């Protein structure tokens, strides 16, 4: 049951927001299109990781390293557009460059590409949580006549915020749990919770893409 949930249902749930995004493609703004490409990228890497790990029995950790970098780069672009920081190009560019450098250094000297990159993944989570909070702060500051729950961006941001907040601890202790948790069931329960967070994020993304909110 847990295998079906984590191996089929949750990975397949990514198709839902992708489908709604395609249905609404013509009306999608740039930031929503960026998020669509994030889903595509994430979907492909997860599929590849499953194929490599489950069917070819090879180590798929290098893909997690790639996923971490691409994820941050795409979501940085998303937040740059969402937060309308046109004048802060250098800041975003600097963060991106810094993060790529860190990932390379980490892979070369600290956590090999064949182990889980808990340092950079945790850092990515912190970075994205900060940007998500930034969006809430921006909305709170600008809340003149807006109904936040009618904004698709609210659902995208909430999805990102909840996923990275919930999974943050798991990213930090990922390698630690691998060694110290002896029971396979216990290990699966934790990753089941992680899968539920992904599922929740996909549902929130789907809501964001699906609804044509009219009462703004």
């Amino acid at each position, binding site marked *: 049951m847990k295998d079906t949930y984590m191996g089929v249902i949750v990975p397949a749930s990514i198709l839902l927001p992708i489908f709604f995004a395609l249905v609404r493609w013509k009306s999608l703004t740039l930031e929503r299109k960026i998020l669509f490409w994030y889903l595509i990228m994430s979907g492909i890497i997860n599929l590849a990781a499953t194929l490599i790990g489950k069917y070819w029995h090879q180590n798929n950790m290098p893909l997690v390293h790639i996923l971490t970098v691409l994820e941050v780069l795409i979501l940085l672009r998303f937040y740059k557009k969402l937060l309308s920081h046109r004048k802060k190009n250098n800041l975003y560019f600097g963060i991106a460059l810094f993060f790529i450098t860190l990932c390379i250094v980490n892979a070369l000297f600290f956590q090999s590409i064949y182990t889980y990159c808990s340092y950079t993944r945790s850092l990515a989570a912190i970075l994205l949580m900060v940007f998500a909070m930034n969006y809430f702060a921006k909305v709170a500051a600008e809340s003149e006549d807006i109904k936040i729950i009618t904004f698709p961006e609210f659902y995208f941001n909430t999805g990102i915020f909840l996923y990275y*907040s919930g999974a943050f601890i798991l990213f930090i202790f990922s390698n630690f*749990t691998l060694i110290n948790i002896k029971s396979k069931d*216990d290990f699966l329960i934790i990753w089941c919770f992680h899968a539920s967070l992904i599922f929740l994020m996909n549902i929130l993304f789907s809501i964001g893409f699906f609804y044509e909110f009219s009462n703004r």
Partner: protein
Amino acid sequence: MNLVTDNIFFLVLFDMIGTFILASSFIFFFLRYQRKIALQKAAMQKAEVEYSSQLLNATLLSQEDERKRIGRDLHDDVGASLSNLKMIMAQTVETDEAKIKYKPLIDNIITTVRTISHALSPPGLELFGFDYAVQELVDSFNIAGTIKVALNNSVGEKLDTLSKPTALALYRVLQELFSNTVKHANAKSIIITFLEQNNKVVFIYEDDGKGIALEENAATGMGMKNIEARLKMIHATHSISSSPNNGFKVTINVTYNS
């Protein structure tokens, strides 16, 4: 030294759940805060609308009082003085030539003063009710003007049960509509209809004039603004239908006890 026996599984799981709850709570409180701000803003807007509505009511009421006072003064003082003048002149002026010359002039002034006084404060409305006052207004318009006015009143004397402020407001609206038709419409006829629907009075005013483009003239003139203000005061609803060269029609719905 005691050995730490904490289970890493529980620690990580509880941490994950805890952080997730923390993040969810943050979003929950954020949404509540947003809602609170929105409600406060809506309440403020409502209070502002109510205040401006009360201000408008007070202005219109004091305007009516002032009109009433001026109308009464004109009728009682100026009108009476002119009638006295006419009598004195009839008794003291000896030559027929002078009588022929001044009498029509004084008669004309008396008529004008009466018309102005009646327009300012329609006595028929207070004395005989709304039904009579409307009929009187229509008659005076038919006598004076080149526009033919037809009145269809299927409500009858029940119109007199309209509350005083409602009757006065509708009377003023009718005056304003007449004035608009004369000034702008170039119409040949006007039809006024009163009927009853769902215990409400429906008042329809239509002319066959040149009409207006509604999008361009949506309550831009003072006349239409006055009409809307008065209707708002008595909680009446209205709809206008008109287009260039197709006449003008306004339908007003009002309850008896507005």
